[in-house]
C-alpha cells in the first residue's frame, strides 16, 4: 500500500479524466438508480432538436431547492409522453407541474450527470392538481365563502354584462359576435374589463378587473370571465386561492368560460354559472333571454286565451237568453193560463156546498135569535113588574097611609131634632093633608 501511494504521489502514472468519468459511469451502472419512479417539479422545459430538455427540482416547504437534476426525454419518446400526459391532464409538459416520471441515471463522460426520462404517470399530476384544488376549496368552505356567488339570485333577464378577458383574444371576439348577432333580436350590453388571462399575473390581473367592475356595480347584471382560446396548458393559473376567494365573494353572479371540455378549475366550483367556452357563455346568456321571451309569449297566450274564454262564455250566455226568453215567457203565460182556468173550473163545485151549509147555519141562527129575544123580553117584563111592586110598597104615600108623617121646616124635610130650634114654624104632612105648628120644646132622644 505504502509503495503504491508513493508511486501515485510521485505521479508515476495518473488516469485520464475520461477514464475517471468512465469509472463513475461504471459505478452508476447500478439497478438502484435505473428505472426509478421519481416525484419532482418540472422546470426549464424546452424542446431542442426534437429532444425535450428539462430540470427536475425538489423544493422544501419554504420553497428552497433541496435537490436538482438535469433531465432529458429523447426525441423518439417525447411525442408519446406529451400525448399521454395531455390525454389525462389536458396539459402539455411545462414548468411548474408536479410530475412522477420513470427515470434512469445517465452519466456521460463529456456531458456529465443527467437522468433519462422514459415514462410519466399523468394521474399523479392530476391528483396533485386535484389536491391543490381541494385545499383551496376546503379553505373557502372553512371561511364560509365557497357558495356565496353560487347562491346569488341570477336575474330573470341578464342583459348588462361586464366581461373580463384579454382584448385581442379569439375567444372574446367569438363571445361578442355570438352575443350581439343573436337571431332573436335580444339586446345585450357588454363592457370589457381587460385582464391577462395566462401566466403568473392571471390572478392579480383578474382581481384588479373585478375591483374595477365593483366600482360600477349598478350598471351590470353579471360578470363573464372568459379566456380567449389558446392552449389548455395555462389553466392552473386559475387554481389560485386569492382569485377564487374574490370570485366567490363577488356581489354579482359570475359566469366562467375559461376551459375546455375536461378542464375544471377552482373557479368552476365557486362561480354562479360554469360553462366550458366563451361561445358557451354567449349561448347561455342568449338562452336565458330566449327563455324570458318565451315566458312573455306564454303569458300573452294565456292572457288572450283567458279573455277569449270570458268573451265566448259571455256570448254563449247571451245567445242562450236570446233564444230562450221568448219561449220561457210564452210557456210561463201558458202555464199560468192553464192554472187559472183550472181554478175557475173548481170554484162552482167547491163553493156550492159551502154556501148551502152557511145558509142553513144562518137560518138556524135567525130562529134562535128570535126565540132568545122573546124569552128575554118575557123575563124583563116579570123583572119590571117585581120592581114596580117594590116601588109601590116603598112609596111615601103608602108610608103616610100607615101612620107616618113628614115634617118640614122652610121647605126641607126634618130628619134630626138638631135642625130645629124654639119657635120654628114647621109643616107636618099626613096621608090625608097637612098642618102647621110651632116648636115649643125640643127633646133629644138619647143614643
Amino acid at each position, binding site marked *: 500500500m505504502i509503495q503504491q501511494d508513493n508511486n501515485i504521489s510521485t505521479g508515476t502514472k495518473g488516469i485520464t479524466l475520461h477514464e475517471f468519468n468512465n469509472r463513475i459511469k461504471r459505478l452508476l451502472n447500478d439497478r438502484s438508480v435505473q428505472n426509478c419512479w421519481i416525484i419532482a417539479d418540472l422546470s426549464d422545459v424546452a424542446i431542442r432538436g426534437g429532444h425535450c430538455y428539462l430540470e427536475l427540482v425538489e423544493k422544501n416547504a419554504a420553497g428552497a431547492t433541496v435537490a436538482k437534476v438535469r433531465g432529458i426525454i429523447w426525441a423518439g419518446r417525447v411525442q408519446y409522453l406529451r400525448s399521454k400526459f395531455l390525454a389525462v391532464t389536458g396539459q402539455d409538459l411545462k414548468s411548474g407541474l408536479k410530475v412522477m416520471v420513470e427515470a434512469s441515471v445517465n452519466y456521460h463522460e463529456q456531458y456529465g450527470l443527467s437522468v433519462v426520462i422514459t415514462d410519466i404517470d399523468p394521474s399523479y399530476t392530476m391528483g396533485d392538481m386535484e389536491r391543490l384544488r381541494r385545499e383551496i376549496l376546503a379553505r373557502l368552505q372553512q371561511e364560509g365563502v365557497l357558495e356565496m356567488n353560487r347562491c346569488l339570485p341570477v336575474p330573470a333577464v341578464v342583459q348588462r354584462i361586464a366581461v373580463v378577458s384579454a382584448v385581442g383574444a379569439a375567444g372574446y371576439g367569438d363571445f361578442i359576435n355570438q352575443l350581439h348577432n343573436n337571431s332573436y333580436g335580444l339586446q345585450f350590453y357588454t363592457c370589457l374589463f381587460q385582464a391577462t388571462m395566462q401566466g403568473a399575473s392571471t390572478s392579480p390581473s383578474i382581481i384588479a378587473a373585478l375591483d374595477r367592475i365593483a366600482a360600477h356595480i349598478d350598471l351590470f347584471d353579471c360578470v363573464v370571465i372568459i379566456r380567449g382560446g389558446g392552449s389548455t396548458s395555462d389553466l392552473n393559473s386559475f387554481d389560485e386561492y386569492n382569485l377564487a376567494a374574490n370570485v366567490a365573494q363577488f356581489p354579482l353572479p359570475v359566469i366562467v368560460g375559461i376551459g375546455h371540455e375536461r378542464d375544471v378549475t377552482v373557479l368552476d366550483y365557486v362561480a354562479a354559472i360554469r360553462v366550458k367556452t366563451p361561445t358557451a357563455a354567449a349561448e347561455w346568456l342568449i338562452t336565458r333571454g330566449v327563455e324570458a321571451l318565451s315566458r*312573455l309569449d306564454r303569458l300573452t297566450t294565456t292572457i288572450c286565451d283567458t279573455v277569449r274564454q270570458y268573451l265566448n262564455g259571455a256570448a254563449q250566455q247571451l245567445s242562450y237568453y236570446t233564444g230562450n226568453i221568448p219561449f220561457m215567457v210564452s210557456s210561463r203565460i201558458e202555464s199560468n193560463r192553464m192554472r187559472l182556468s183550472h181554478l175557475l173550473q173548481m170554484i162552482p163545485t167547491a163553493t156550492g156546498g159551502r154556501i148551502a151549509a152557511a145558509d142553513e147555519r144562518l137560518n138556524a141562527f135567525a130562529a134562535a135569535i128570535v126565540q132568545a129575544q122573546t124569552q128575554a123580553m118575557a123575563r124583563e117584563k116579570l123583572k119590571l113588574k117585581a120592581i114596580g111592586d117594590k116601588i109601590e110598597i116603598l112609596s111615601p104615600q103608602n108610608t103616610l097611609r100607615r101612620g107616618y108623617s113628614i115634617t118640614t121646616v122652610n121647605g126641607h124635610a126634618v130628619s134630626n131634632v138638631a135642625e130645629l130650634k124654639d119657635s120654628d114654624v114647621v109643616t107636618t104632612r099626613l096621608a090625608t093633608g097637612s098642618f102647621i105648628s110651632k116648636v115649643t120644646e125640643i127633646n133629644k132622644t138619647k143614643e
Partner: protein
Amino acid sequence: MENSEEKMTYTGAISELEKIVREMQSDSCSIDNLSALTTRSLKLLKFCKSKLQTTDEELKKILAELEQ
C-alpha cells in the same frame, strides 16, 4: 298596480303580469274588470318585450365610455 313607467323594472313587470293572469283566471274575476286587467297586462307585456329587444342607447353610451 305599478303606475310609474320610469320606476318599472322587468322583474316587477313580470311578477305583476303573473299576478294579473292569476286574477283573471280566478273565480272572483268578472267580465267587468277584465277590460282593465287586459289593458294593464298588454302594457306590461309591451314594456317587457321592449326591455329585451329595444336598444337602450343611453346605457350603451355609458358602457362604451367606461370601456375606454
